[in-house]
């Protein structure tokens, strides 16, 4: 059966875009089993997949794709499987980011027809505009646009775009950038949806997975230590203006909205306060109910429910919720806190 993708993509294009269903279909027909990866001819695939995972561990760029299409597509599929077995969301995210970045550069270089075809495969609805408008030759579905917007400010911000009847006008480079974001999510979803319960791993693959897993563990430990260094005990003077405002409102006995309470509790917990400390901050609220407050704070701290620890809202969301009170030039309230602390400790060193 001829590849439908070949109509638009040449066969060599598939190595640049191994996530395209046609590429994956193609390797399926080869009938390769996991045990085959341990045999010599396919070792290159395993090595390449391991290289991809290591690049994600080290946070470096991925090497260019293999010129052998089948090798590239199989390595991509195997990389996803390895990440699934390692099972760490942060590592998966790092791979998704690195891979999307590599792909984004290819996409930006494609002609319009190819680009539209690839984005369509990522479920990003995009059309070639019937007439170029202010230099924009494509339009993206508005909901796909906001779901894949790289950043909610500057020229990307929806209020600043040409928006018309459900479409947002973009140029080719912007379309490729939106594709990058869509690809990140596509990869994460693919890994999420994989079922590995029935997969039998040959020993050699299994020891590779163990090795990568412990490499990531070491790397993660050093990342966390670096973070912890900057945050030793919480320091109220370094709180960003938004959090300081909420605290003073709570202390003044004002009624603060639920969103502000969530922002405050998640912030305080993130900078190392324990549940009791946080409750004592809230105790001056006019409608303070210890039982309810404790339940909610414990939930935010990850001590209830799924054990998921909540982070405070990022600045964009704080602004939308009407909780932002200053222009701090940071993206996240915690970033303000850490940067202030770091600046201060540098000063003290001097």
């Amino acid at each position, binding site marked *: 059966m001829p590849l439908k993708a070949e109509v638009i993509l040449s066969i060599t294009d598939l190595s640049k875009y191994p996530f395209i269903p046609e590429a994956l279909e193609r390797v399926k027909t080869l009938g390769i089993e996991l045990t085959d990866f341990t045999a010599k001819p396919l070792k290159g695939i395993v090595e390449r997949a391991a290289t991809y995972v290591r690049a994600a561990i080290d946070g470096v760029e991925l090497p260019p794709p293999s010129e052998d299409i089948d090798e590239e597509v199989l390595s991509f599929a195997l990389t996803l499987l390895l990440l699934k077995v390692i099972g760490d969301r942060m590592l998966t995210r790092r791979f998704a980011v690195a891979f999307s970045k590599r792909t984004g550069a290819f996409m930006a270089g494609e002609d319009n027809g190819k680009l539209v075809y690839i984005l369509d495969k990522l479920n990003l609805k995009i059309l070639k505009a019937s007439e170029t*408008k*202010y230099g924009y030759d494509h339009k993206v*579905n*508005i*909901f796909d646009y*906001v*779901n894949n*917007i790289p950043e*909610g*400010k*500057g*020229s990307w*911000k*929806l*209020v*600043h*775009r*040409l*928006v*018309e*009847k*459900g*479409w947002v006008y973009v140029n080719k480079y912007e379309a490729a950038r939106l594709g990058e974001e869509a690809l990140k999510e596509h990869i994460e979803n693919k890994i999420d949806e994989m079922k590995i319960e029935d997969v039998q791993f040959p020993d050699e693959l299994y020891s590779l997975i163990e090795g990568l897993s412990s490499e990531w563990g070491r790397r993660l430990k050093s990342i966390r230590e670096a973070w912890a260094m900057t945050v030793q005990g919480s320091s109220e003077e370094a709180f960003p203006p938004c959090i300081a405002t909420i605290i003073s*409102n709570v202390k*003044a*006995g*004002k*009624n603060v*909205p*639920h*969103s502000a309470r969530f922002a405050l509790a998640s912030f305080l917990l993130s900078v190392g306060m324990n549940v009791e400390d946080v409750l004592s901050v809230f105790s001056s609220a*006019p409608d303070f109910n210890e039982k309810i407050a404790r339940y909610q704070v414990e939930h935010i701290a990850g001590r209830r*429910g*799924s054990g*998921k620890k909540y982070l405070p809202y990022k600045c*964009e*969301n704080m*602004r*939308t*919720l*009407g909780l932002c009170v200053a222009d701090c030039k940071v993206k996240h309230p915690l970033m303000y806190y850490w940067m202030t602390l770091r600046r201060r400790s540098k000063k003290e060193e001097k």
Partner: protein
Amino acid sequence: MMEKAQLTLSSAKGLFQSYYKQLTVGDIVVSSLSKREFAFSYFDEGGMHRHISFEETGKLLNHLRASSPKHVYYSTAYYLYPSAKDMDAKGWEGADLVFDIDVDHIETDCKSAHDQWRCKTCNTSGWGNVKACPHCGGEAIEKRTWVCETCINVARDEVFKLVEMLEMDFGLSLHELFITFSGHRGFHIHVESPAVRVLNQDARRELIDYVKGLGIDIRVMLVKNKGGFKLRYGANSSGWYARISRWALFMLGAEDPVLNLRDWEKIFIGSMKKEAVAIDENVTIDTKRLIRLPNSLHGKTGLKAAPFTVNELEKGEFIEKVKVFSKEEIKISTGGELPKKVLDLEISSTSRTLPFYVALYLMLNGAPIKINV
């Protein structure tokens, strides 16, 4: 002579029961009902009963008839396991895009006729809307708010602006928009199209900012031109550029003018004041929100969260559609001042009778009133 019976909060349950008894399956307009979480609060017990689900509309209806709840909510989200107690175990599959327009968030002239405040610090009280106590400056303020036809008209105008934006900019068609009265001081606009269900919180925030005109940056939208500035995309453009250009045309008679930054700022602010929609961002950004069930009764008003078409809103048939209980004049006695204007009625301090639905609203929402039945 028989002693006069008084309507109490607990006997109000009987009134709600009579309403739910005549409700039919066709009145329950919730899509994918079995995937939604339901929540109830009742007249005879406190708290909210959450994490409840129903396999089919008939079962929900039976529950409404049997328990006559004070408030009924359902989730804007679709879940795999809607009755799971733990939010993360529910298996979130998507959520409707919902906009809430509430006159609580909009300044209106009528508030001084019906809204009351009390300072928790010095116990001073008064009419209208204050942020801080004019007597002691305290900001711990307790409020009791009411709705009148003026409020509803203000909220309705916001709905029209939103609908225009959803159609013209977001490309949604009227039949994709489901508008209901919120039961008290505004409207909910639900969008259930598959394309919006998968929107993440960041995406919803971006849409909120668009609707409210938040984050509009004059420096991004203008370009230098002949010693001044003009819109990056001027006349014949779309989105906010077209709105701003329209306002420039209205104010200056030129739709694509070259102006200095200060003059542009005035145009931007004017346009935003006129065209931005006062939605409550907390509702739209929340992908796990509980929202009032359409056609259910609001426990603090006795009014029905009735669905409206844009056409019906334009015709202004409001009270008739949301009023469930009778217009019959009944005797009341008061233990304090009543708001001067609620729903479609002006209340004088000497009133000794009121239409039943108005008296019920006053009682349910905590006014110092006794209803003799």
